[in-house]
């Protein structure tokens, strides 16, 4: 079920009212579990068994890890969880990629493979998200950061909690599980705030991202026949399309969870206002980047074991991050570019300059220096998006080459700038609190803004485009 469909707008209020009509936490959790399975099964019920299997494996593995006292046995159980989750992820997401790459490699050294080994595998929606979520649970129990739960229903609700099941934020058991286990009470303010986030998320997805996608697709498909200015516009549009699409999904997920009395982690904290690439990675897809930091980068030694180990670790997490996004060399190239950009700043020890505050926190406008920093960071991030969007690495280079050599004033595709400029203005005004958009103090102005936004969402809503991150 997509968030931007009529089905979801029937599903959400029905689930919401039934949920609050139930008084006992135990039954609320059973209801959440059932609703989440209906939500996921709406897309393809056959893949429900994968979520169930992943839930069962990690539930029992975590219990065994906690019960056993031998370190070696704990490690074995943890390995079972990791191997199981990575195997289903590997099979459904990467099997064909490895087979195709192997056939290509063999053909390059003179062996022609005539039998086709590839399988017609459907990528189960959200597999990259929920496998990471369940794995983090077993890892946290292994590190004694949390206790393994005996309540299977609550654990299954944690794994399949429908607002964040298919595209995150990737939750940690330490944050979500205690909320699921404890009693929840309806809170007017929290629910209104949730609805506001849903409205803002839908606006970003349906009005901004989907409108830009109508321009991005023809530009990337016909890049050979367009001038450099138009290609630059295509890149700017894609940068905002992917941001509004994915952060819009996260806002809807966080907003929906709030309506059910649950607080999810923030996933996007105004990344395009970052002053350097390290700040960008603390603000972009936070739940994934912090996952890689906590479960890969730090266990590998982080930046504490010398320069060469730091360099190795940075490359490892960015390449894995690229590969997590998809089975294509373009994503690996995208990860590599970010590794190089991050490396420059990490080796000069400037990667922790902007860890807490947002740009121009107590001012209306940024300084000249900040404008330069934001623009240069955005520009480098934008260039890397070419690799993310193009079908092949060759296409990416040709796109960039054409953009630079054949630069001219764009003749067509200029309408998207209206959406981009309008969105930047809104995001700038919101920038102090990503979890509280549209918080206008005058009631009439606030309600007018809500109504206008809803009219725009409904008016733009005919396409029902899937969220980009569903494919990951």
């Amino acid at each position, binding site marked *: 079920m997509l968030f931007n469909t009529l089905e979801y707008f029937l599903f959400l209020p029905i689930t919401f009212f039934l949920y609050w009509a139930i008084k006992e936490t135990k039954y609320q959790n059973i209801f959440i579990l059932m609703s989440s399975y209906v939500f996921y099964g709406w897309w393809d019920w056959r893949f429900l068994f994968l979520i169930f299997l992943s839930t069962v494996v990690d539930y029992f593995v975590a219990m065994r890890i906690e019960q056993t006292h031998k370190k070696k046995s704990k490690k074995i159980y943890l390995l079972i969880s990791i191997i199981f989750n990575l195997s289903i992820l590997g099979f459904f997401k990467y099997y064909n990629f490895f087979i195709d790459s192997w056939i290509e490699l063999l053909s390059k050294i003179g062996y022609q493979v005539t039998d086709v080994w590839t399988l017609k595998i459907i990528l189960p929606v959200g597999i990259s998200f929920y496998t990471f979520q369940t794995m983090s649970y077993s890892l946290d129990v292994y590190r004694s950061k949390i206790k393994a739960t005996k309540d299977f229903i609550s654990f299954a609700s944690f794994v399949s909690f429908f607002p964040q099941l298919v595209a995150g934020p990737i939750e940690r058991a330490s944050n979500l599980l205690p909320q699921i286990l404890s009693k929840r009470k*309806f809170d*007017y303010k929290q629910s*209104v705030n949730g*609805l506001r986030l849903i409205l803002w998320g839908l606006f970003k997805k349906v009005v901004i991202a989907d409108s830009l996608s109508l321009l991005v697709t023809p530009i990337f498909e016909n890049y050979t026949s367009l001038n450099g200015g138009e290609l630059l516009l295509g890149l700017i549009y894609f940068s905002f399309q992917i941001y509004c699409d994915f952060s819009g999904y996260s806002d809807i997920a966080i907003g929906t969870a709030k309506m059910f009395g649950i607080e999810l982690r923030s996933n996007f904290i105004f990344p395009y206002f970052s002053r350097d690439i390290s700040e960008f990675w603390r603000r972009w897809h936070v739940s994934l980047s912090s996952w890689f930091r906590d479960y890969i980068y730090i266990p590998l030694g982080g930046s504490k074991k010398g320069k060469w180990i730091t360099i190795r670790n940075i490359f490892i997490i960015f390449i894995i991050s690229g590969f997590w996004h998809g089975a294509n060399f373009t994503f690996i190239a995208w990860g590599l570019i970010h590794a190089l950009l991050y490396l420059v700043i990490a080796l000069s020890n400037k990667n922790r300059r902007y860890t807490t505050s947002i740009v121009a926190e107590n001012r209306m406008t940024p300084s000249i220096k900040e404008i330069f920093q934001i623009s240069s960071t955005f520009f480098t991030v934008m260039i890397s998006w070419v690799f993310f969007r193009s079908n092949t690495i060759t296409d990416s280079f040709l796109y960039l080459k054409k953009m630079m050599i054949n630069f001219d004033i764009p003749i067509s595709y200029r309408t998207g700038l209206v959406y981009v400029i309008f969105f930047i203005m809104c995001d700038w005004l919101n920038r102090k609190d990503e979890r509280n958009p549209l918080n206008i103090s005058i009631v009439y102005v606030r*309600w007018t803004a809500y*109504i206008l936004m809803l*009219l725009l969402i409904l*008016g733009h*809503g*005919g396409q029902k485009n899937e969220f980009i991150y569903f494919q990951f």
Partner: protein
Amino acid sequence: MKKFIKRGVLFLIITGIVSLVVGFLSVFISKKTFDYKIKEKKNILIVGNSHTECSINDSILSNSINLSQSASSYFYSYMKIREFTKYNPQIDTVIISFSDNDLFSEKEKWFSSSEKINNKMTRHIILFNKDDYLDLFKSNPIEVIVQTFILYSDFYNLHTKKRDFIGSYNKINVNKIDEDIIEFNRSPPIIDSIIAITELQYLLKIYNFTQENEIKLILLNTPIHPILEKHFSVIRQRNCSSIARDQMPNATYFDHTSFVLKNSDYADLSHLNNKGSNKYSEFLQSIFNK
């Protein structure tokens, strides 16, 4: 919770009223400002679906205007004919796409499916009258109500793309005929012999309208690739020829499905690309010259 429900309902009611007011206002403005008037010398109106949309280049077939649009039900073609002939009395000929494909039972969906209403209703809203609205409402009330709340959604497109937004000649540059032939051989399309009743009703409504207004109606079966032409030949004879002959005796039926073209002239098995459409439009011009 009570406060939440109260405020939520109030918000939805206000939004609903505002959207209806904005919607009706935008339709009123669009109807007043839409340019229905075509050039005086243009006396041939072309309507229908993607077949005529891709096949007839109206800059080659002189004195014609192509308002066809892909996946258009005869319901929308009927409205186009009715409204455009009202403002353009010089129109004395209507060409409409007419193939076995248009009358498949599957094509019932072109009128009543939510997907099609979603795509077509607000786009054509300026052509609607009360009866059209009620007919569509009876076929799919929920979707029509949903669309009624967003009547304003194509206001911008109608004002910027103007007449092209409801139909125009579609110049296609691609050619994917080789892939389509492979696909055809792998799984040939199903031959559906059941007639789409609603589509036929609206086609007959078009026929009656043109008869009453002394307009020449040409039922046009545009060129398709020979393998598709052969595949559907029996059903074409049974459906198109007999329907044209028995139910629309005063209409002219042109079966150009076997018009000879090269593989490079097709966009796919059932549509022409710009090369093919230019050749075919010149051929049609020669017919009209005679």
